[in-house]
């Protein structure tokens, strides 16, 4: 069995999870605690990838990240290379598409924090930033962990968006899901079966973990 696609999948999931855990926390904080105009519009916009077909996201990302697109041109002037069909390109796509899966559990966890705890923190002289790191984060660890696992699983399962943005370049953008699709297409059922078999227990165990984490919150 070719292990490289599994490795690319794993790498993609780890990168996406790492980026989103850091990125989604302040966003979730803003959406849970701050009041600003247009908040629900922004939230709906962030959640849009969850509701749209991957092909719609893929189409927009390909146009934006292509040599004629805004992001693509910026990237090319900075690095001299293309963003499409590279690992960074699929990582960026994966981050955008998995953002809602990070945001929802984090927001839920933040909103469950007892407000009196926060008020105490402010009375004791903590700034908003200090309170974020010393009160909010420690009190919503299981929510953050659930978010991380969901993002990890969602990026392991991504297919349509990756094939549009990444093509299927061995060792670079050919993730396990694409390799399985291609193995079936070229009737390499043994390879497809083995690789699928690798993914099932991983996803199952991680989902069990999410359940456990969610239960601990109550």
């Amino acid at each position: 069995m070719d292990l490289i696609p599994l490795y690319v999948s794993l790498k993609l999931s780890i990168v996406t999870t790492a980026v989103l855990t850091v990125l989604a926390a302040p966003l979730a904080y803003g959406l849970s605690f701050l009041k600003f105009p247009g908040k629900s519009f922004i939230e709906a916009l962030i959640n849009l990838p969850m509701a749209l077909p991957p092909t719609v996201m893929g189409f927009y990302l390909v146009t934006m990240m292509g040599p004629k697109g805004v992001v693509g041109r910026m990237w090319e002037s900075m690095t001299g290379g293309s963003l499409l069909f590279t690992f960074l390109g699929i990582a960026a796509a994966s981050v955008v598409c998995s953002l809602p899966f990070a945001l929802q559990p984090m927001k839920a966890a933040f909103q469950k924090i007892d407000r009196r705890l926060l008020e105490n923190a402010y009375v004791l002289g903590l700034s908003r930033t200090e309170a974020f790191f010393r009160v909010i984060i420690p009190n919503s660890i299981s929510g953050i962990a659930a978010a991380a696992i969901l993002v990890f699983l969602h990026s392991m399962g991504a297919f349509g968006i990756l094939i549009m943005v990444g093509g299927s370049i061995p060792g670079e953008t050919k993730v396990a899901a694409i390799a399985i699709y291609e193995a079936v297409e070229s009737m390499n059922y043994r390879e497809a079966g083995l690789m699928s078999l690798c993914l099932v227990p991983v996803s199952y165990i991680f989902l069990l973990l999410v359940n456990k984490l969610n239960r601990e919150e109550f």
Partner: protein
Amino acid sequence: MKPRYLAYIILLLLIMPSFAHAEEKIRAAVAANYIQTMKELAVEFEAGTGIKVEATFTSSGNLYSQIIHGAPYDIFLSADEDRPNRLYQEGLAEEPFIYAIGKVVLWSAKKDFCKTGDWHEALKRESVKKIALANPDIAPYGMAAMRAMKDTQSREALQGKLVIAQDIAQAFQYASSEAVDAGFCALSATLTDAGKKGCFFMVAQAPPVVQAACVLKGKNRPAVSRFALFLISSEAEVIKKKYGYR
């Protein structure tokens, strides 16, 4: 596991690909009719030169659109002449060359399918409910099959039976798994192990599929030129013949 160790493992995972880049390799974008042939050619080429060829297989149309959008391939083996020519005219590729000429067949997993008549009569039978065809807009083999159907005035009669596959390999997979009764495939597919299990009609009305390749602009390293030459060498010819290409 302590978080520190986990961090080390993650770091290691992220660094790893830099090893993979060390050895010399060629990235080829290859039309789906050429999967088996390409795999054998790659083994042969690597054995002779030590240069690894990594191929991505899908329809020519799909690969073309990826190349237009800046996909990092070194060489493009299309299933038509038109797309490499367009890339050449757009300044995205070197001058194309023909590396293979393929044929369209109608293949079925059921051995008695091909006992009588010819392909368009066979398709009109009551018992034939579904026929796989590679998307003619992006797959040259699908387009050639479509032309044959038009020539024999059978297109209208078959319209309701056609199942559109993303590329010619998928059309063959549909037929091989008997998800469809028959499929328009490449002659090369019938010469694989799976292909020998079924039977096929030649589709004489389909024009021969002239397949051209081109080295992409700026990718003309010695290794790539060497592979381009290898594609039309006599060593490659043996493998190509085995799969029914001229």
